[in-house]
């Protein structure tokens, strides 16, 4: 580990794992930026979606729906910049675990996450939610976060710039 650090301090010998880590970091950044962006652009849909999980009273729903999009955007931005990668990955992992728990409990309780409002042409069956796909997707993102927690070393990261002076 020490030699790995020493090598990169001298600006050479980036390991291929660094490249993978960079792709993982930018990928997870994209996930948060897109997800947060969509939520921020449609606050009503976000409120309705959070409410559908039925895990807290309406006052709590309002706070979560208001804050969540910008939290996701912030996580995305920090990952994009590569600042505090390990910590941001930990927060990401935590948030993803919360999402996974939310979807799992909704599935178990038979709740309908899809409000059915954008319906198909008449009488709409409300439950077209694909819980399995959601869980699989979130688990995939969790793997990305876990990688970065274990190995936050990446290229093109602000982390490198900021800590270069600390000797």
């Amino acid at each position: 580990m020490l030699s790995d650090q020493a090598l990169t301090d001298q600006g050479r010998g980036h390991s291929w794992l660094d490249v993978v880590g960079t792709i993982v970091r930018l990928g997870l950044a994209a996930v948060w930026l897109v997800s947060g962006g969509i939520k921020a652009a449609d606050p009503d849909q976000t409120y309705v979606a959070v409410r559908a999980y039925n895990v807290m009273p309406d006052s709590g729903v309002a706070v979560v729906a208001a804050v969540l999009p910008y939290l996701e955007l912030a996580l995305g931005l920090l990952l994009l910049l590569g600042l505090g990668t390990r910590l941001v990955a930990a927060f990401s992992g935590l948030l993803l675990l919360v999402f996974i728990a939310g979807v799992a409990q909704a599935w178990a309780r038979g709740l309908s996450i899809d409000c059915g409002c954008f319906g198909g042409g008449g009488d709409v069956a409300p439950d077209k939610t694909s819980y399995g796909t959601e869980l699989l997707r979130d688990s995939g993102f969790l793997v990305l976060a876990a990688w970065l927690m274990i190995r936050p070393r990446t290229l093109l990261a602000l982390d490198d710039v900021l800590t270069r002076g600390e000797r």
Partner: protein
Amino acid sequence: MAAKSGSRTVIYVVIGVLVVAGLIGWTISMLRSSSQTQVAATYTTAVQGAVVVAGKQAANTVDVYEDFLCPICGRFESNSGGDLTKAINDGKIQVRYHPVAILNRATSPTGYSLRAASAAICAADAGFFPAYHKQLFADQPAEGSAGLTDQQLIDEATKAGATPPASFNQCVITGKYKLAVTNETSRAAKDASLRSPGSTGFGTPTVMVNGKKADLSDDTWLTNITK
């Protein structure tokens, strides 16, 4: 390797960014809700089939298709209900409310959407549609729940500040307008002009401004015609 991401300054910056992001979100939502107009309705309504015509004939006609169980319709009502009411009061628009029941199967037992839509038209007959319509959305039940019972639908009138006559109660219990609403729902579902470009179905809320579908994600959809 651990030293880099763990440096104290970085931790503070990360936490700082997240806190600021949360505050931004909170502020934006506060600004949004404080900009919601609150005004009492002074307009009269008329019932035409399964449509509640709100206000007198005006330069602009707005058709609003809503399902009382639809959560996004509830949000539409809190966001734009006040502005719509004010515009009708001021004679700038005439709104034609079309209560529909696309989510009729989404309660357990089924049928809440239809009963609520019918009750709303009953309220128009009895002269207290604006307050009742607002109240039904304020007390909107969750999808998958039992919805409101007929008695609760009747009680909503009192909650809305009205004194419902016996004819209203009868109207709700017998579901007088259920057939009309069912027919209107089918008509709307088949009407291609009500669909968003590229969409294959009819959803709620659907708002038409002078016969053209309004994009509700555009904040200026109403101010464009009321300024």
